[in-house]
Every structure is written in C-alpha cells, then in structure tokens.
C-alpha cells in the first residue's frame, strides 16, 4: 500500500515517443498506452478519429511515486502549452508492492 500519482496524458500517436522520452528524463520508466477510438478537444474543436492517422491520438498513463511528480510536470508541461491534448494527475493507491 503506497500512495502514488497517476499521470494521464493524451497526445497524437506520432508524438507518443517524445512524451516517453520526457517521462524517462523525469525518471519515469513505466507507462501504458491505449489506442483512442475517437475524441474531441478544445484545440481546433476537431473530432480526432483513429481512422485517419493524421488525427490519431493515444491515451497514456503512468503510476509514479509522488517524488517524481514535480519533475515530470516541469518537463512535460511546456509541451502542452502549444499542442492541445490532455495532461492531468490524480491520486491512487498502489497495491502491487
């Protein structure tokens, strides 16, 4: 039992490797990526559909120790300043030791 942070990120599939790099730079090596079927954000109000790779996004999340949170935010935040998508965190309890 360990209180931890869940970082949730939505980016274009093509950008996901850049985010993985940024996570690693923050000391985070664990992540999970899921395909998004369809979505809409506030950037262009565009419906992003996985049918066209040009608008395809992925949903990534990482469960990380609280100590790693600050660094991750600092490194990843600038990315989202221009790029739309989603970047949220929340609290979870890790059962896996």
């Amino acid at each position, binding site marked *: 039992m360990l209180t931890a942070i869940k970082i949730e990120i939505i980016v*274009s599939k*093509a*950008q996901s490797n850049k985010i993985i790099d940024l996570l690693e730079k923050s000391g985070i090596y664990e992540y999970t990526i899921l395909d998004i*079927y369809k979505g809409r954000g506030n*950037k*262009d*109000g*565009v419906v992003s*559909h*996985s*049918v*066209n*790779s*040009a*608008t395809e996004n992925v949903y990534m999340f990482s469960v990380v120790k609280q100590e790693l949170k600050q660094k991750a935010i600092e490194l990843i935040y600038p990315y989202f*300043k*221009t*790029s*739309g998508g989603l970047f949220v965190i929340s609290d979870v309890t890790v059962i896996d030791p």
Partner: protein
Amino acid sequence: MSMNLESILQNLLSAPILFFFLGIIAVLLKSDLEIPPTIAKFLSIYLLFDIGIKGGIELYHSGFTTEIGYIMAACVLMALIVPIVSFFILKTKIDNYNAGAIAASYGSVSAVTFATAQAFLLNQNVFANGYMVAGMAIMESPAIVVGIFLIRHYNAKQSIGLEDSSHGSIKTILKEALTNGSIVLLLGSLIIGYLAGDSGEKELHFFVRDIFKGFLAFYLLDLGIIAGSKMGSLTKSGAFLIGFALIIPLVNATLGIMIAYFIKLNSGDALLFTVLCASASYIAVPAAIRMAVPQANMGLLLPMALAVTFPFNIILGIPIYYSVINYIWNNNSHILSFLY
C-alpha cells in the same frame, strides 16, 4: 471532346467510385455504417504495397529509360512550385500557419487518388509506366519542408523577438518527412517489385492485381464515410478555402498537363503525373504538420483535402484530365505548341 462525358460516366459507374458515393450517402442517412479504423489502416498499407510492387515489376520490364530523369525532375519541380504558389495565394486571407499547412498538403500527393487513376487507366486499357510510382514517392515529402520553411520565414519576419513555437529543426523535420511510414513502404515495395521481377509477378499477382479492385472499393467506401462526415465542418473553412480546394486542383492539373506534354510523356503517364499534381495529402502531410506546427488548424485543412479536393479528383477530375490529355495528344496539340 464527346469522349469527355462518356468517360466521366463510365468512371462514375465503376464499382470503387460507386462505393465512395455509398459512403457519403451513408453519412447523409446518419447510418452507423463504419469501416473499423484498423481495417482502414490495413487498406492504406495494402494500397501502398500494391502500387509499389506493381510499379517495381513494370520498372523491371521497362528498365531505366532516359525519360525517367525528366519525370523525376518534373516531380521535384512541381513539389516545390505548388506549395510556394499555394502559400502566397492562401496568405492573402489566412494566417501563415494555416497557409503553410494547406500549401504543404496540396504540394504533396494522395495515394488513393493515384490508385484510382491507375484503375481508371486499367479500365480504359491504357498503359502507364512503373516509374510514375517513383515520381509519387518523390513528391510526397518536399512540400512538407517547403511549407514549414515558409511558415518560419514569414513568422520570423513579422514578429521579430517573439519566440517561434513551432516544434523541431528543419533538419529533424526533413528527416521525419523522408522516413515517413508511407514513403518507406512505397519506395521499399517499388524496389522489391523491381528486384523480385518476374518471380515477384508470379508470386504476387493475385494479391496485387486480382483482388486490388475489391480492396480499393472498400477503401473508397471508408473514405466516402470520412469525406461525408467532414462535409459538415466545411462551413468553418469558409467560401475562400472551399473555392481554393476546388480551383487549385484545376490549376495544378493544367500545369501538370503542360509539363507532361513538354517532356513528351505518353498519355497514361501524363494522367498519373497530372493526378499527382492535382491531388492533396490528407494523411501523411497533416500528420507531419500537426507535429511540427501545432498552431495549424486541422479543422480547416482536413475537410478541404478530404471532402472537396479528393472527391472532386476521383469523380470528375480524373476523367476530365484524361479527356484533355487525350484531345491534346491526339491533335498534335497546336494548343500547347507554344511550349516548344
């Protein structure tokens, strides 16, 4: 030019084109008809594989002729001219980011439009050379780099001192544009078709020839659905951009036909080259631009390329371009004689 109408009609009644209409109709009926995204991706991979292999096998048979050099040069030329001209036209009404993004898209090519033109030629029993596929590969990326370069150049001019927030160096962008999945697959398949030659033809002809039209029909059904669902958001683009999306293919096609005539392509190759000039990318280029220029609005670009230019080209463009080519080529073309 009575052939014109007939060939338009014949094109309209070919099964793949009809499936494109079915897709649009399904959207208008608010039907839930959908091709699963993964299948759509498979179809786009299949198409590049198919175009590449067939082109490579034809290249194996024709060998490298001196014509190839001219064609490749013409392709590079058009891949530079089209985005530059487009950018300056667009810049008169919209911001640099979107002007550059749209210019890049129209300077690049659409593989399905190309495949539809190939199917059209097949139906008309007209021969085209395999190296046109190499031309397609060559025209895919330069416009991306040109578009991004123009955006940066004009942003720097306008807002000295202000940070330019577009991502990545021109070098990175160039690298990414050239190693794009669709280019690697297309060029790779072309080379493999060439290397495998006759034995490749024997091994793969059922896969790349016999079932080709079926997969093309499926893909066009999918694109019909996508185009249909993007039509609603065309309103956002406004009359100027819709007009651009309708007229620029004609302008580029005219340029393409003139160049094709000038470098003496046969009529099949001339059509394919013209289609490369007239078509716009709605997958590879937008994907690249979205990464490099997050300020560009996909809500403007995609509906133009997908819901206007693409349908226009496959439904009317291809038969019209071909009729014109046919007319000129057959009439020893006093029309274009000024080119000499």
